[in-house]
C-alpha cells in the first residue's frame, strides 16, 4: 500500500528523519511507536507532504508520490488526523465535516451522517457550533470523523486517542478494526499507549532518533523488551 | 555660511536646480512645471545657452515631503552648487526652503500664485500676489457685470495660502460693506473627497440667489467638490464658483460638463490668443510629445506653467545682462527687467522681486479651456503685503532692506 524508503526530512537546519523506511500493508493497521520527539509526527507530515522529503521516496499504490503536495495526496486517498486536531476553528462542526468531502472519491455521496453520528453522537448535537469551541476530546472526535468522511484508502492517525474518554477510545479501536476488515482500509497509526496499540495493530515499527530500530508483526513482538527499549 | 561664490562654471555648462515634486501628492501639479522648466532650458540651450554655456538642469525629487524640500535645497546649493533653483508649488514647501536659500544666498524662482506677506531677497516670485488675483476676482463678482453677488462662501484647503487668501478677501469684502454674516469661511484638509455636507450648506446659503463661492480648494479635492455641487442641483447660474487654484492643467481631464460657466482668476490663460502665446502652446505640446511625456500633444499650458517657463528666461536674461551667474549680480540685473512672455510683456518690479502682469478672469468652457471675460489693460503691480491687512508694510530691496514699515 505505502512504502517509505530512506526518507530524510528536516525543519530548516535540524534534520529529524535520517533515512527512515517503513511499509504499510494493505488492509492492516501498522503502528509506529517511540519516545517523545523521535520524529513520529514528522514522519507522518512527510508522508502527507506537509514537509517535503529531502531524500528518499514515498510510494503509494505503486505510484511515486514523493513530490505530490498534501492536497494531491489527500485526493489520492490518504487521510490524515494530525496531532493537535487542527479543527478549522471558526467553521461549524458540520462545515468541518463537509470539508472531509473535498478529498472524497465521490462528492455527491455526501456525508455518511448516520455512520458518523452513531460513532460520535456528540457531533450531531453540536452540528451548528463552531469547531474551535468544542472540548479537546470532542475536537479529536471531530478530526477522526472528518477523516472518515473522505473515505480514504489509507488513514494516517497521529495519537488519535489523546484526550478521548476511555469508552470512545475503545470504540475507535473497534471501528478501526471494522473498517480494516470490512472495507480493506489501511491504517498507519502513531501511538504511545501500548494498550491501545495492542488492541488494533497488526504490525509494529519502533522508532528512535529518526530511524526505525525494530519492526515486526503483532505475534512476533516482545513488548516487555520493547518497553524497556523505549523507556531509556 | 559661505556666500557669493557658490556658483560654478566648470567650463561648458552652468547648473540650475529643479525642485519640483515628481512623486507624492503634489506631483499632479508640479510635474508640469518641471516639464516647462525643461522646455525653457532646451530652448535656451538650442539657441546657444547663456553666456556661452549650456544650462545643465539638476533635477531632484522632493517627493511632496516638506522636510525633503529643505534637504534637497541644501544639496542643490551646497553640494551641487547650482546657480539658481526653479521650484516649489505649495507655500509650505517654499517656507521650508526659505531659510536654506537665505543662509546660503541662493536664488529660488517661485512660479505659483501665493498669499504674499513675504519678501525674501533670495526668492524671485513669478506667481501672483493677492492683489493680482484675489482682489480683482472679488471685485468682478461684486460688479454689475459679474452678477452683483452679495454673499460669499470662502471655501479652501486648510493650509497657509487659502487661509491668508481668505483673510485678505474677507478684509476686502468687509471694507466694501458686505456684512459679516454674509461671509462664511470653511476649510477642508488636503485630499478631502466628501463634500456632501458642505455642498448642502452652500445650497442653503445660496438659496436666495445672491451668493457665490470663492474657492481656494487645491488639487484633487476639486473634482468631488464640483461633481457634488452639480449633483445637488447647483450651477453657475445659481451660484458661481470663482476658483483660485483651478487652471487648464487641472481641467485637462476633468469631466468639464459639471464645470461649465464657473470662473477662475489668473494672470494667464491658454486661450489668450496672442501670436506669442500660440507659439508657446504649440511648442509645449510638441515638447511633451517629443519627450514622450504622459498626455503628449494633449497637454495644455496654464498660469503656473507659463511662469515656470518665464522664470528660466528671466534668469537667463538677467545673467546675460549681468555678464555673470553670481547670485548677487543676477539679482541686481533682475530688478526692473522686462520680458516678452507668452502672456505678453511682463516686468520685474524694481524693488520687491515680484512680477507685474495682467489679471484675467476666465469662464470655463466645455473643452476645458477658459473664455476670457475680463482682462486688465495694464500690468498690475505686485503688492506682496496687502494694503488691506498690512497697510503699514511694504517690500523693497533697493531702497530698503526688504520688508519695511511705511
Amino acid at each position, binding site marked *: 500500500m505505502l512504502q517509505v524508503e530512506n526518507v530524510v526530512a528536516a525543519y530548516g537546519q535540524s534534520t529529524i528523519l535520517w533515512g527512515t523506511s517503513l511499509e504499510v500493508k494493505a488492509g492492516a493497521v501498522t503502528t509506529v511507536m517511540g519516545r*517523545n*520527539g523521535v520524529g513520529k*509526527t514528522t514522519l507522518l507530515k512527510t508522508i502527507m507532504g506537509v514537509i517535503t522529503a529531502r531524500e528518499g521516496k514515498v510510494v503509494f499504490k505503486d505510484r511515486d508520490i514523493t513530490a505530490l503536495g498534501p492536497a494531491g495526496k489527500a485526493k489520492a486517498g490518504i487521510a490524515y488526523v494530525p496531532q493537535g486536531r487542527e479543527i478549522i476553528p471558526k467553521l461549524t462542526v458540520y462545515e468541518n465535516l463537509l470539508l472531509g468531502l473535498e478529498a472524497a472519491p465521490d462528492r455527491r455521496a455526501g456525508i455518511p451522517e448516520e455512520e458518523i453520528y452513531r460513532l460520535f453522537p456528540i457531533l450531531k448535537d453540536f452540528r451548528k457550533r463552531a469547531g474551535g469551541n468544542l472540548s*479537546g476530546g470532542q475536537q479529536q472526535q471531530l478530526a477522526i470523523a472528518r477523516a472518515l468522511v473522505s473515505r480514504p484508502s489509507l488513514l494516517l492517525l497521529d495519537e488519535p486517542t489523546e484526550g*478521548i474518554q*476511555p469508552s470512545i*477510545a475503545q470504540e475507535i479501536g473497534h471501528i478501526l478494526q471494522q473498517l480494516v476488515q470490512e472495507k480493506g482500509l489501511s491504517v498507519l497509526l502513531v501511538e504511545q499507549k501500548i*494498550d491501545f496499540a495492542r488492541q488494533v495493530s497488526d504490525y509494529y515499527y519502533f522508532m528512535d532518533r529518526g530511524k526505525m530500530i525494530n519492526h515486526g508483526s503483532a505475534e512476533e513482538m516482545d513488548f516487555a523488551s520493547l518497553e524497556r527499549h523505549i*523507556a531509556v | 555660511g559661505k556666500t557669493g561664490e557658490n556658483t560654478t562654471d566648470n567650463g561648458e555648462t552652468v547648473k540650475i536646480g529643479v525642485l519640483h515634486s515628481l512623486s507624492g501628492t503634489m506631483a499632479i501639479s508640479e510635474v508640469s512645471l518641471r516639464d516647462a522648466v525643461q522646455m525653457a532650458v532646451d530652448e535656451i540651450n538650442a539657441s546657444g545657452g547663456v553666456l556661452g554655456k549650456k544650462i545643465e538642469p539638476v533635477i531632484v525629487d522632493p517627493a511632496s515631503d516638506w522636510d525633503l524640500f529643505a534637504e534637497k535645497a541644501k544639496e542643490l546649493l551646497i553640494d551641487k552648487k547650482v546657480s539658481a533653483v526653479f521650484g516649489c508649488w505649495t507655500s509650505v514647501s517654499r517656507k521650508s526652503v526659505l531659510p536654506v536659500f537665505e543662509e546660503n544666498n541662493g536664488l529660488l524662482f517661485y512660479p505659483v500664485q501665493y498669499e504674499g506677506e513675504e519678501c525674501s531677497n533670495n526668492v524671485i516670485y513669478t506667481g501672483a500676489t493677492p492683489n493680482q488675483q484675489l482682489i480683482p476676482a472679488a471685485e468682478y463678482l461684486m460688479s454689475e457685470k459679474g452678477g452683483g453677488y452679495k454673499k460669499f462662501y470662502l471655501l479652501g484647503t486648510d493650509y497657509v495660502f487659502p487661509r491668508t487668501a481668505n483673510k485678505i478677501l474677507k478684509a476686502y469684502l468687509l471694507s466694501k460693506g458686505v456684512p459679516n454674516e454674509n461671509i462664511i469661511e470653511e476649510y477642508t484638509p488636503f485630499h478631502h473627497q466628501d463634500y456632501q455636507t458642505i455642498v448642502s450648506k452652500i445650497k442653503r446659503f445660496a438659496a436666495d440667489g445672491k451668493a457665490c463661492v470663492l474657492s481656494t480648494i487645491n488639487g484633487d479635492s476639486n473634482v468631488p467638490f464640483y461633481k457634488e455641487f452639480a449633483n445637488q442641483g447647483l450651477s453657475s447660474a445659481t451660484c458661481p464658483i470663482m476658483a483660485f487654484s483651478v487652471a487648464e492643467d487641472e481641467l485637462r481631464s476633468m469631466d468639464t460638463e459639471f464645470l461649465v460657466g464657473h470662473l477662475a482668476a489668473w494672470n494667464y490663460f491658454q486661450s489668450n490668443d496672442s501670436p506669442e502665446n500660440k507659439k508657446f502652446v504649440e511648442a509645449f505640446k510638441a515638447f511633451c510629445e517629443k519627450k514622450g511625456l504622459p498626455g503628449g500633444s494633449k497637454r495644455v499650458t496654464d498660469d503656473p506653467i507659463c511662469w515656470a517657463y518665464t522664470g528660466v528666461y528671466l534668469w537667463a536674461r538677467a545673467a546675460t545682462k549681468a555678464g555673470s551667474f553670481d547670485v548677487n549680480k543676477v539679482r541686481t540685473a533682475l530688478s526692473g527687467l522686462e520680458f516678452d512672455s507668452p502672456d505678453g510683456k511682463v516686468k520685474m518690479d524694481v524693488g520687491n522681486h515680484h512680477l507685474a502682469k495682467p489679471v484675467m478672469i476666465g469662464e470655463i468652457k466645455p473643452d476645458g479651456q477658459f473664455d476670457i471675460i475680463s482682462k486688465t489693460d495694464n500690468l498690475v503691480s505686485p503688492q506682496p503685503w496687502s494694503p488691506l491687512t498690512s497697510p503699514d508694510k511694504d517690500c523693497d530691496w533697493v531702497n530698503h532692506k526688504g520688508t519695511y514699515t511705511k
Partner: protein
Amino acid sequence: MLLSVNNLAVSFGGVQALSLSHFSLQPQELRVIIGPNGAGKSTFLDIICGRTKPDTGEVYFNDRAIMGMTEVSIARLGIGRKFQQPSVFPGLTVYDNLLLAAKMKKDILSSLFFKPSQLLKARIHEVAEKIGLTKVLSSIAGALSHGQKQWLEIGIVVLQDPKLLLIDEPAAGMSDEETYKTGELLLELSNNHGIIVIEHDMKFVQQIARERVTVLERGKLLVEGSFNDIRNDQRVIDCYLGRNNTQLENL
C-alpha cells in the same frame, strides 16, 4: 480548605457547560477529575484560574473569594495552570521558559535588574532533569515535539511553585513510561501542594489517585470516591469507561 467552590455555573450558547454545587480541596490533596469529553472539566479549571467568567457561583482560595480577579492576581495568589493544549513561550529557549516561570518578584524593576542566583540555576537544572529536557535546554521551545512541550509546561508550573496546581491532561501524547514518570512527579509534588489533575488515562489515574476521584458529567458532579469505587460504579462505566473495556481490563 485550600479551595472551595459553591454553586458554580456557566453556560455557552444555551448549553450548561458546568453546574457544580460544591467542590473542595484540602491543602495537600491530589485530586483527579475525570469525566466524558465535554463534561466541563477544562471549563472548571478555566474558571478557577480566571480565564472564563462564570455566570454564577463563588470560588474561595485559602478562604479568599477570587472570582472577578484577573488571571495575574490569581496566579500571584499561588495558582498555576497547565493547559490541555500545551502553552509555552515558543520564541524563547527552554531554559528561558523555565527561568521566567520560576518563583520570584515579577514586577518591572525587579525584572530589569534581575540576576539569576546560583540557587535558582541549580533549581532550574534540577527541574529540567526531572522533565527530561536537559539536553534541549538551549533550543527554542517552539521547535519541541508535542510531548516535550507537555513536559516543558509541567516544568513551568512546577517552577512557579504555586500552592495549587491545575493540571489538564498531562499524560496526553506521552508514552506509558513517561506517563508513569509524570505520575511520580505529581505524587512527589502533592507532598506540599494542592493539585487538581484531569486525565483520561486510567492507568495513570490509578497510579496517582491516592485519595478521592471526582467524576463530572454534563457539567454536574456524578460521583466522588476512591479509584476503586469509581472504577466499579455502573454510572461511570456507562457514560465514561465503557463496558468490556479491554484496555481497562489489565488494571
